[in-house]
C-alpha cells in the first residue's frame, strides 16, 4: 500500500510538472490571441514579458558630408532605435504586462484581452507617452463559425507581424516588415525632410536639430475595429479565416478620417503535434489589407517644371494596400518560413520622419514650401520577401537561426521625375543563436550583415546620392535576454 501511494504521488508530481510547462493556448495566432479555451480559462490571467538587449552598430560615417545632399554622418539605419542617437548601448526594448480571461467564468462564450507597453520603442516613443495600451478587446463566441472580436488588437496579417512578439526568433524585424508593414502614420502637420539641419525652422514649430520627428506611435501591426473569424477542423487540418474592419490608425485609438481599413486573412495548417505558439505544423496563409490615409502635402507646391509635384497641396487622401502570402513549417526542432509581401501607396521613405516623398536638397523660402520632387511613395509600389529557418540542436538548449530578407522600395521609381532612379534595395543576412535557459527565458544573439543600395545616381551627385549613406551601413550585433512571465 505504501509503495502504491508512493507511485500515485510520483504520478501526480509528474503530472503537475508536465502541466506547469505545457502551452495551453489555442492553436493559431487568430485563435490564440482572440479566444480562450472554452470553460477552461480563469477570470483573469496576468501575463507579460521583458526584452532587454545590447546592440552595437558597426556602420561607418558618410564621408561626403558637407557636399549638397549629404547632411548626416550617421543616418537612422546606422543608429539604434527608437532614439536614433547612438550606435551602441543597452536597451529595455520591450516590457509588456497584460491580462486575459473570461470575466464570468460560468459563461465560456465571452473573453477579453488587454495589454500595455512600458518600455522604450516605437510604440511609446512617438507621441511622447511612456506607457501605451496596445490591446484591449472583447470576443463574443456565441455564433459558431463567426466569432466576433471588437476593440484594439493585432490585425490578421503577415506571419512575422502576426505572431506573438515574445516568441519571435530574432532581435530585429526584416526590412520589409520594418519599412513596408510597421506603419508610420503621417504627422498631423507637414514635416520637411530636412532633419538635423541646424537653425532651420520647421513647420511643426520645432527647430530642434534631431531625428525622430514622429508625432504618433508606430502601427505595431494593430488597429481598432471589429473582426469576424473562426477556425474549422478537417481531420489533421485547421482552416482559419478572419475579416476585419478598423479605423486604420494603429494604436492611436481614434478614427482620424472617415475611411475604414479592411483586412482579410486565410490560413490552412496541417497540424503534426502539440499546441500553442510552438505547435508543430505546416501552415499556408494569404492576406490582404486596404485603406486610405490622409497626408499633409506641402502647403506651397514646388513651381511647375522639373520636380514639380503633381499632387494637390495640403490635406490629401491616398490609397494604401498591402498583401502577401507565405508558408511556415515547424516539426521536430526544424523550422522554416518564407513570405512574400507587396504594397501600394503610402510607401514610407523616412525613416527619420514620416515622409512619403524624397525631395531635392537646397534652400527654400519658407517653412511648408516644397522642394523639387525626386521620388514619390504616396502612390508608389514596393515588395519584399524573406526566408528563414531554425534548428534546435538535439539534447542541448541551443538553437541556431538564419534569415535572408530583401526589400525593394519604390519598384516603380523610374516612372517618377528627378535625376536619379530612387529604387532602393535592402538585403540583410541575419545569423543567430539562441540559448534556452528555460522554457520562459532565452538568450538571443544576432549578427546582421546589411547590403543597402539605391538606384543609379551620379556619385557624389549634385542632388545628393543615397548610396553615400547606404553603402556605409555595416554590420549590426545584438544580444537579447527575454523572459516571459
Amino acid at each position, binding site marked *: 500500500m505504501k509503495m502504491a*501511494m508512493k*507511485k500515485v504521488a510520483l504520478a501526480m508530481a509528474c503530472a503537475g510538472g508536465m502541466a506547469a510547462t505545457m502551452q495551453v493556448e489555442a492553436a493559431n495566432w487568430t485563435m490564440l490571441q482572440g479566444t480562450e*479555451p472554452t470553460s*477552461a480559462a480563469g477570470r483573469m490571467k496576468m501575463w507579460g514579458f521583458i526584452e532587454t538587449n545590447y546592440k552595437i552598430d558597426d556602420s561607418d560615417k558618410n564621408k561626403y558630408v558637407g557636399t549638397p545632399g549629404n547632411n548626416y554622418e550617421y543616418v537612422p539605419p546606422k543608429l539604434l532605435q527608437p532614439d536614433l542617437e547612438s550606435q551602441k548601448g543597452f536597451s529595455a526594448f520591450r516590457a509588456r504586462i497584460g491580462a486575459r480571461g473570461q470575466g464570468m467564468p460560468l459563461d465560456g462564450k465571452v473573453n477579453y484581452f488587454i495589454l500595455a507597453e512600458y518600455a522604450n520603442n516605437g510604440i511609446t516613443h512617438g507621441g511622447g507617452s511612456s506607457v501605451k495600451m496596445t490591446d484591449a478587446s472583447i470576443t463574443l463566441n456565441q455564433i459558431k463559425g463567426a466569432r466576433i472580436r471588437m476593440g484594439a488588437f493585432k490585425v490578421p496579417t503577415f506571419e512575422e507581424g502576426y505572431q506573438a512578439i515574445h516568441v519571435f526568433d530574432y532581435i530585429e524585424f526584416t526590412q520589409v516588415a520594418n519599412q513596408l508593414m510597421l506603419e508610420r502614420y503621417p504627422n498631423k502637420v507637414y514635416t520637411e525632410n530636412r532633419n538635423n539641419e541646424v537653425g532651420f525652422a520647421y513647420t511643426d514649430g520645432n527647430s530642434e536639430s534631431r531625428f525622430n520627428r514622429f508625432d504618433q506611435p508606430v502601427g505595431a501591426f494593430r488597429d481598432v475595429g471589429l473582426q469576424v473569424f473562426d477556425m474549422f477542423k478537417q481531420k489533421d487540418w485547421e482552416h482559419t479565416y478572419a475579416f476585419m474592419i478598423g479605423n486604420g490608425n494603429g494604436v492611436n485609438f481614434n478614427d482620424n478620417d472617415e475611411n475604414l481599413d479592411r483586412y482579410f486573412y486565410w490560413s490552412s495548417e496541417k497540424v503534426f503535434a502539440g499546441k500553442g505558439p510552438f505547435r508543430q505544423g505546416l501552415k499556408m496563409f494569404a492576406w490582404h489589407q486596404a485603406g486610405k490615409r490622409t497626408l499633409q502635402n506641402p502647403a506651397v507646391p514646388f513651381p511647375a517644371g522639373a520636380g514639380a509635384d503633381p499632387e494637390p497641396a495640403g490635406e490629401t487622401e491616398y490609397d494604401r494596400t498591402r498583401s502577401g502570402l507565405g508558408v511556415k513549417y515547424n516539426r521536430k526542432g526544424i523550422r522554416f518560413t518564407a513570405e512574400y509581401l507587396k504594397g501600394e501607396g503610402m510607401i514610407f521613405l523616412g525613416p527619420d520622419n514620416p515622409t512619403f516623398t524624397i525631395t531635392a536638397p537646397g534652400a527654400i523660402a519658407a517653412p511648408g514650401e516644397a522642394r523639387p520632387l525626386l521620388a514619390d511613395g504616396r502612390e508608389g509600389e514596393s515588395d519584399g520577401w524573406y526566408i528563414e529557418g531554425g534548428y534546435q540542436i538535439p539534447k542541448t538548449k541551443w538553437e541556431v537561426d538564419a534569415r535572408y530578407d530583401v526589400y525593394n522600395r519604390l519598384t516603380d521609381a523610374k516612372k517618377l521625375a528627378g535625376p536619379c532612379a530612387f529604387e532602393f534595395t535592402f538585403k540583410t543576412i541575419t545569423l543567430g543563436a539562441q540559448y534556452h535557459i528555460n522554457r520562459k527565458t532565452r538568450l538571443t544573439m544576432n549578427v546582421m550583415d546589411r547590403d543597402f543600395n539605391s538606384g543609379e545616381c551620379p556619385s557624389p551627385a549634385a542632388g545628393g546620392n543615397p548610396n553615400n549613406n547606404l553603402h556605409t551601413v555595416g554590420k549590426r550585433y545584438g544580444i537579447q535576454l527575454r523572459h516571459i512571465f
Partner: protein
Amino acid sequence: MLKYTTKWSAMLVALALIAGGMQFAVAADKPFASKKIVLQISDPNPFKQTLVLNVANNIIKEYGVDNVAVEIVAFGPGLRLLFEDNANSGRIQGLASSGVQFYACSNTVNNMAKKLGHKPALNKNATSQGPGVVRIVKLVTEDGYTLVKP
C-alpha cells in the same frame, strides 16, 4: 415456495445492482481493480483542470486500466471541467473510454443554473445524482476509495 421466493429475491437484487451499476459502474467495469482513487476538483483555477486530468491519466498508466478505479468528482467552481463545451472534452472522452468516471455535483449544477438562467449543459460522460461532497464521502467511507485533491 421458498424456491420461488429466493429466485424472485435474487432477481430483485440483481436488478437493483444493475440499476445502481448503470450509474456507478465501478465494480462492474473494474471487477479486478485493486486500487480505487477519487480525485476532487473544486478550484476555479483552470490549471487545475489540466492537472486533475493529467493525474487521472498517469494513475491509469501506472496501474493499468483494469487494475484501478478512478472517479473525478467536480463541485463548486471546479464543475466547469464537466461543462459540455469545455476545451478539455476530448481528453475527458479519452479517459472515460479508459473507465474513468465523472461525477458532477447536483447542488453546484442547481446554483449555477440560478446564475446562468438555465442549467449548464454537462459532458455526456458525467453523472449527477446528488451533492459532490456526499459522493466523495460515500466513495471513501463505504467503497474503499482514497481521496486525492491535486
